[in-house]
């Protein structure tokens, strides 16, 4: 690969990210790139033909027809090419070895088994993929899936804050028991906090009793709202005691006994440790941001079982991987999937209607039911990386809308892995991850001419030749 000095600086940019960038390169002029394309498929909005994409420091700043851009911009002439967002692979084990693991391992991550130089990222980006989410291997809950860029600085390929907890729900008890355990962990902390609060309240009461005689201050305070105070203190627990402890801390002067006791005890509440294996599930139950779960189910009935598992946990969010190896009878639950606007990853194929020789465009039906569908590789092999376009073209021929097919490769998987605001479409403030085709992207005969990650060209078919 050819790397000019310009590209080296891009490498740096990619590595350090936008924040640091402002700080370190404030004196320098931002790096501008302008892509003049024959056709721009933005995915999220309208198509431009021809169109211009303006990129500043690896981020898209504008897209449209006949846009102006700074004279210093590096211009990429792709007037005869079609540009679309880089493909996103929402679930793969490409080039990773299979090993078995069972049980709950929320503390493990697939990142621990990935050596960036050993995964065929070059093959991925040559097929148009700019981002891929790798899942850990194993049954049950084998751990966290991690997101990688397929090009750029090797140190900076791992995308922080993306990915999901990979859950295989085929055995119903796995997830049910794991969630139960996570709930117990939460209850354990709540209980410990309650005990601590009670202890503090008790201590405070004692301190107050000791103080009462000597302190005119406290008398004044209590004077007017005596009843209210007492009513508040006990049930409120945590907050009341926390606040008031803070106030009373500086005046232990007279109540010698109680003050000594106070000092001996730790002043802040220390939560008992959570079993790290269950941490992601605890976060899910507590609805923390940036935690996701992708549940793999193997047939339609498993969705009903999943609903039963999740019933006690209100509105727990999850995405779905519909495995198609054993059964493809998801048409039974189209309504249920549509109602929850499920985010779904599935292998693109014209599946058989179970027990028949009828071909059935399940993906089109899922889209029609208003699910957000993402395509995964049919198998984690090199040939499938490029064949995925042909498979989607098959589905388009069988009734799927082209725009939906584009989304299956870009925007929807980006959302699925938690990067919907960063990648997956060509619009302002998105990362400049682009793929250039010399024809229609869904035409199996068209080839990838160029791939760009964060505004940097990571693959150029013309230079390779």
């Amino acid at each position: 690969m050819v790397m000019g000095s310009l590209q080296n600086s891009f490498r740096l940019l990619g590595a350090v990210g936008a924040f640091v960038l402002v700080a370190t390169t404030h004196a320098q002029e931002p790096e501008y790139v302008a892509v003049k394309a024959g056709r721009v498929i933005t995915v999220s909005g309208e198509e431009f033909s021809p169109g211009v994409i303006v990129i500043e420091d690896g981020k898209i700043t504008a897209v449209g027809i006949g846009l102006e851009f700074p004279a210093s911009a590096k211009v990429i002439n792709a007037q005869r090419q079609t540009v679309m967002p880089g493909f996103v692979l929402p679930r793969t084990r490409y080039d990773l070895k299979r090993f078995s693991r069972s049980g709950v391992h929320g503390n493990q991550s697939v990142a621990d088994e990935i050596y960036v130089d050993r995964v065929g990222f070059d093959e991925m980006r040559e097929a148009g993929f700019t981002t891929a989410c790798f899942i850990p291997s194993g049954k049950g809950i084998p751990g966290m899936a991690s997101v990688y860029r397929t090009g750029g600085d090797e140190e900076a390929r791992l995308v922080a804050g993306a990915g999901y907890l990979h859950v295989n729900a085929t055995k119903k008890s796995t997830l049910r028991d794991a969630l139960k355990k996570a709930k117990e962990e939460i209850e354990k902390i709540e209980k410990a906090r309650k005990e601590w609060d009670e202890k503090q309240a008790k201590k405070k009461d004692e301190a107050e009793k000791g103080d009462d005689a000597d302190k005119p201050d406290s008398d004044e305070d209590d004077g007017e709202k005596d009843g209210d105070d007492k009513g508040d203190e006990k049930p409120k627990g945590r907050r009341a005691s926390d606040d008031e402890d803070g106030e009373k801390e500086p005046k232990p002067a007279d109540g010698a006994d109680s003050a000594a006791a106070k000092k001996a005890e730790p002043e802040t509440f220390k939560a008992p440790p959570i079993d790290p294996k269950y941490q992601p599930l605890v976060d899910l139950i507590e609805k923390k941001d940036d935690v996701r779960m992708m549940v793999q189910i193997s047939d339609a009935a498993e969705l009903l079982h999943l609903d039963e598992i999740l019933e006690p946990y209100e509105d727990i969010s999850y995405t779905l991987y519909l495995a198609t190896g054993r059964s493809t009878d998801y048409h039974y639950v189209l309504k249920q999937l549509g109602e929850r606007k499920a985010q779904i990853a599935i292998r693109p194929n014209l599946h058989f209607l179970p027990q028949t020789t009828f071909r059935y465009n399940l993906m089109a039906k899922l889209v029609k039911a208003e699910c957000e569908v993402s395509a995964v590789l049919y198998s984690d092999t090199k040939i499938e990386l490029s064949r995925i376009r042909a498979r989607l073209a098959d589905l388009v021929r069988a009734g799927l809308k082209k725009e939906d097919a584009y989304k299956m490769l870009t925007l929807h998987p980006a959302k699925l892995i938690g990067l919907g605001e960063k990648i997956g479409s060509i619009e302002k403030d998105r990362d400049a991850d682009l793929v250039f085709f010399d024809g229609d992207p869904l035409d199996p005969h068209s080839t990838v001419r160029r791939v760009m990650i964060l505004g940097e060209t990571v693959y150029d078919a013309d230079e390779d030749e």
Partner: protein
Amino acid sequence: MLHRARLLTLLLIVSMTVPLVRAGDPKPDKDKPSKDKTEAKKDAAKDEKSDDDKDKKKKKKKDDRYFAIKAGTVHTVTGATLFDVTILTKNGKIIEIGESVEVPEKAERLDASGYHVYPGLVAVSSSGVIGSEPPDDSTDVFSLTMTIGLAGGITTAVTGNTAGKLTFSTLEGLVVKRDLFYKLSYSSSSPDGRRKLREKFDKVRQYMRDLEIYADEKKKDDEAEEPDKEWLTGDFKKIHALMRGELVAVASADRAYEIVQYCELAERYGIKIVLRGAMEGWTVPSRMARAGVSAILSIRPPIFSTDTGHDERINRKTGRSIENAAILARHGIPIAIVPSVTSITLWGLAGRDLLHLNMEAAFAVRGGLSEDAALRTITIDAARILGIDHRVGSIEVGKDADFVITDGDILHYMTHSRWTVVNGRIAYDKQKESLYDHIRPDGNRDAPPPDDYWPRCLGTN
């Protein structure tokens, strides 16, 4: 058919007694003045109350689910056979059967006039139609085998030690009863096992005697010592329940000598035993009757390699007999019938698999069992043996709304299930499944297919 004459006499009785039953909440129409409005209201209030206590939460979430069948002939099994009545069900339970049932407007309706309505069949052992134990964790409620089971008229099946429903497309109300039986093994090939089992029983029996003595002593002496019961856990606890009549034992026994040994065990410890197999039961029926055992049998059991039938060289009755069920029934032994293969199999077409549960019962008729009794062996008697006869096995108010609606006598080989209803939901519709829709025994091959003809999902939308 033989049925006819009997049915006609029943019709007379029925016409005098209809409406037979009235319970529940039919929500009378406001426009129509109802004779027994006050009565209905009273009943409605009553029903609301008892229901409210049970599932208050559920009611808040979901509306009541009504389902009404306009039935041609209703074979209640435990009561009279009814003609041209309406069966009204609410939330999966039968709430009213009669000629003038007021059906709530929002109710789902099924016009089955001209069809026969039977209680859903009970398969006392099965594999594949519902998931393996525990079925509520493993059942594929969209599986083809479940659909085939429903096509065979089965609505309740036993998997492992649990009875469950074939609740197509939903997990609601799947499990009927867990821990059906205590599994007993008293095999002559394991004398040591026998001794150990007897020791366990003896120990529990001694404990029960000690308890009685203690109860007597307690009256005289306040400080009497209670017998130690720390050991009464696990297997012992189950045996204790067994000997108190709270649990029923199940054992496999085909040969006469095996059957007799279990009979002895049943008499010795006063326990209830259900014998699976009971192939040679017909040779020792009075022994079985005395011991009070019940039997789960196949009319055409599998062929044994050592003994394929009556063996002339042995100077006693041995082997299988098609009369087995008839003879046992004549001796008052409760029997349930299952095919010898208890799964859905490809070689079972018109064969001995679970798809032909009704055919297996029909073969018992061939062996001399009355048609009534044969129907009972796959409905109410089977339910009774499983201890779930309060829920399934017959069409009665208060019981589960499980029906198989057929185009003829259920014991006839030409009869198909037209609809199968489970928990008040149509779980199988012959016209909407690919399996048997092309078979039209009534000869009406040119009848137009339904609007959403299979494969439904490939339709115009």
